[in-house]
């Protein structure tokens, strides 16, 4: 029986943001994600009750048994590489990831897309002695994976295999780590794929919103918002990929995590043997990025082929190291993060205006996240929707959390806390993130006790501190021929031109499309 195609509908749209502490996902849509979302659409009578049946509110759940998650072993090699080993003997599998400092925020603006190409071609371009295709044959025959990827602040190389294949797969992993070849045919292939992505980026509302909201919140020249264009992708050469590798891939820039069915001592010895002799290199330096508030106002993207508007109210958020972070997570849960949040209750269930609605103050590990309060509503209720969100923001600023709301938001977080560390792999990923961002390794425990302390006054205070109605930028993507009222009735409006800049003439000789 095959796995089902995405022809399912769920009652809850995927949330755009995680509220609780957790590992930050890739900050940008990767190519493979883009291609997968592209095709992702559609797609009583009880006679009597015996006495022992209790109504839900009379059930006293017993205390949760004490659970001490298994902590990974941390080892630091003399060359600076940090290793975490986490045994997990349930299944005969091994999974490892090396996260390397340096990502898209460090690439030159005129080569935006460089790390996307690097993250793809590192793997597909093969090693000095094996082509990427040969690696594919070898790995797929074992149902094993070695993959490379890229994020805003790092790149990764990972493996996943049955434990019996580990030695062979790890040998190939090391070969790719040390001797990547970045073969030109695979660079060309990856560039073609990025051209496809660029050519299709205005087809779907989601991809427009994802891109434009970051541009508005961060500013178009901010490295967290930059967009790859035909010209910047075409400008990337094989030399650039080799140079990137040369500049960043050193043990002192790497955090390596491994989990699975192995003996930690034996595995540690194996890793020492593999990595001890690797020489240190230059430290990866994070770029110094200036963050400025978005320019408030109403921004409009016209899209003629839709009957629903996407509304996003945007601002700069906070860093997770901010002492207010814990209060912010409680506020977000109450305001727009849960099944019974104010936004969900009022705008979805109460007014039937939206299927997708939610949001809150965003947070990043080492830079301000994007505050985004969003909904999608039919074209004919666009202005009503904006006003609805406006009122909710007023409500957040003026109406303190009721005792019930506060309790519920805290209970949501605290009672589900176990799910932050219920598998050895989650614990490992968490620790790797703390190590990467220089957070205290007990951040998760602190998170819990800080959430417990949050009061209604705290929530009001952080709402006033981080939610500024007059400073927010409002992005509307939709079909204005069907709007309930012109957007201009809400104030001055700026229409955004999202026309895709055509490929430079020099590129038209041989691409895109090889014409």
């Amino acid at each position, binding site marked *: *029986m*095959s796995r*089902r195609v995405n*022809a*399912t509908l769920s*009652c809850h749209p995927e949330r755009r943001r995680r509220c609780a502490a957790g590992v930050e996902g890739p900050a940008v849509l990767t190519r493979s994600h883009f*291609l997968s979302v*592209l095709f992702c*659409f559609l*797609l*009583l*009578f*009880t006679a009597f009750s015996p006495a*022992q*049946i209790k109504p839900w509110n009379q*059930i006293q*759940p017993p205390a*949760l048994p004490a*659970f001490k998650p298994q902590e990974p072993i941390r080892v630091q090699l003399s060359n600076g590489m940090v290793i975490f080993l986490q045994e997990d003997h*349930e*299944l*005969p*599998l091994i999974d490892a990831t090396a996260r390397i400092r340096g990502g898209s925020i460090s690439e030159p603006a005129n080569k935006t897309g460089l790390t996307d190409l690097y993250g793809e071609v590192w793997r597909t371009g093969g090693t000095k002695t094996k082509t*990427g*295709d040969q690696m594919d*044959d*070898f790995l*797929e*025959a074992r*149902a094993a994976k070695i993959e490379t990827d890229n994020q805003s602040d790092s790149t990764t190389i990972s493996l996943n295999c*049955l434990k*019996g*294949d580990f030695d062979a797969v790890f040998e190939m992993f090391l070969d790719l780590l040390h001797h990547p070849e970045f073969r030109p045919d695979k660079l060309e292939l990856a560039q*073609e794929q990025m051209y*496809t992505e660029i050519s*299709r980026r205005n*087809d*779907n509302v989601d991809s427009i919103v994802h891109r434009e909201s970051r541009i508005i919140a961060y500013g178009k020249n901010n490295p967290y918002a930059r967009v790859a264009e035909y010209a910047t992708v075409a400008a990337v050469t094989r030399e650039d990929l080799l140079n990137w590798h040369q500049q960043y891939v050193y043990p002192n820039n790497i955090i390596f995590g491994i989990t699975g069915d192995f003996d930690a001592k034996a595995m540690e010895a194996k890793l020492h043997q593999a990595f001890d002799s690797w020489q240190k290199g230059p430290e990866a330096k994070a770029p110094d990025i200036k963050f400025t508030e978005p320019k408030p106002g109403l921004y409009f993207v016209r899209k*003629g*082929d*839709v*009957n629903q508007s996407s509304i996003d109210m945007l601002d700069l958020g906070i860093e997770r190291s901010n002492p207010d972070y814990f209060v912010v997570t409680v506020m977000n849960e109450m305001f727009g993060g849960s*099944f019974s949040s104010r936004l969900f209750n009022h705008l979805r269930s109460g007014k*039937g205006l939206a*299927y997708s609605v939610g949001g809150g103050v965003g947070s990043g590990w080492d830079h301000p996240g994007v505050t985004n309060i969003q909904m999608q509503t*039919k*074209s*004919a209720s666009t202005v009503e929707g904006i006003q609805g969100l406006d009122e909710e923001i007023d409500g957040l600023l003026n109406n303190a959390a009721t005792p019930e709301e506060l309790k*519920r938001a805290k*209970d*949501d977080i605290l*009672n*589900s806390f*176990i*799910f932050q560390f*219920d*598998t050895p792999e989650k614990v490992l990923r968490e620790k790797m993130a703390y190590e990467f961002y220089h957070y205290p390794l007990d951040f998760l425990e602190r998170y819990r006790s800080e959430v417990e302390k949050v009061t209604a006054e705290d929530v009001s205070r952080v709402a006033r501190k981080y939610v500024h109605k007059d400073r927010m930028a409002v992005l509307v993507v939709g079909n204005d*021929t*069907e709007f309930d009222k012109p957007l201009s009735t809400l104030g001055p409006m700026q229409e955004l031109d999202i026309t895709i800049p055509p490929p430079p003439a020099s590129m038209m000789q041989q691409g895109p*499309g090889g014409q």
Partner: protein
Amino acid sequence: MNRWFAKLTCLLLLVAALPLAAQDLASYEKRVSVKTLPNGLTVVLWRRPEAPVFSFFTLVDAGSAQDPLHATGLAHMMEHMAFKGTPDIGTKDYAAEKPALQKVEQTYAAYEAERIKRVNQDPQKLAQLKNAWEQAIKDADKYVVQNQFGEIVESHGGVGVNAFTNYDETAYMYSMPSNMIELWAALESDRLMHPVMREFYKERNVVMEERRMRTDSQPTGRLVEQFLGTAFMANPYHRPTIGYAADLQSFSASDAAEFFQRYYVPSNMVIGLVGDLDPAQVLPIVEKYFGQLATTSKPEELFTDEPAQNSVREVTLHDPSQPFYLEGYHRPSYLAPDDAVYDAISDILSNGRTSRLYRSMVRDKKIAAFAAGFTGFPGIKYGHLFAFYGVPLPGHTNEEMQKAVHEEIDKLKTQDVSDEELQMFKTRTKADLIRGLASNEGLAQQLATYQTRYGDWRELFRYLDRVDKVTKADIRRVSNQAFAETNRTVGIIQTQTASSHPAPAASKGAEQQ
């Protein structure tokens, strides 16, 4: 290069003996308890004591294929309503709310009767009836405690609270700390016994927004709705799960209640439970609460098999978005003896960078950004489609996609796949099964699904035996059977400039109420 392949073949023989084969089933059987209650409800419990948490997956064997003729989207609507509470949950005063909700239904029926009149509709009367209905809704809304069901689950540590509907089934799922098992049993049995259709007509508007988001405002959403409507004529797979806009604006809470009574019966449901759960303690709790569901006979199968297709069908969507190619061929349901052969074809064509479509269309011909062949579209329970799709690179066309796909199909028909390809499929299937055992959520879904579809969760493992038996000759035979020109439906998006594209007519207007 030759040496490389010699080595590869040698290694292939080694991995043929993977740690997990069907004979290892015995070791997993010890972790599983299956219980069918006297009322017909089946529970499959897999003990996985790694951490004090559990996940469940309730599968109701009714999906949009069961939507009545006048009410497409009803199965999915019912799924939304299952979050609206019960007489105990979601209300300030059920005794007063109940008659208020009855009034909503009465006034709506009166309004609908006038609204759908073909002749002699009285506009003034229509407006009055609409007002009366809207007033009744306002009166009933006074008693609502919004989203209390979800609130109780989440504030007791529930995560991943969700549900889905597809053509074949409706499912409910979340995870909780394991000390909440009795609360879980109370909540879930309550909503499977006494769902209350409160806020129905506002939720209909929420679902309309969902339709706009997934279907109307997405190019591939627009294409697939038309494509399935063309590929299927008799089988209900031709109708969208989300429902047509007109039906979404007319069906009633009474329709949903009727659907619920017919299909949400114990013998038509299976619950998968996975986590830190001791069957000796948990099964009695499950029996105590879910045993309350009344014994009702399994609903009758109302179904028309799709007649054989005898001509090529085609849908062209002139759209402002970039080109896209899709084609599908009818195949029999998942119970067909060749089911695993279709899986083999899909795997060999599409799985990863060694797959045929990747290598031919993406790597070598350099005409597509992505291409794949897949089965199970849009469901599996009835005869469905094996489909192919291609995303052309800039400057390349749908015609090139079609030609390249057909070349690959011809190859399957006329030449055997290689030993390595067939072995990769078998190895990957086993490894994927192992990987699937690592999550409570995934496992709960698998158990409920296999128990429902095969009457025995063990088929999850026994499937490997069927996979092992697939031969090269099977792949050729099935390819020749299925991939015939007269069995083909093609759907394409042809790019048109935005200015000449009319706004979608469907569901653009304001909602009722």
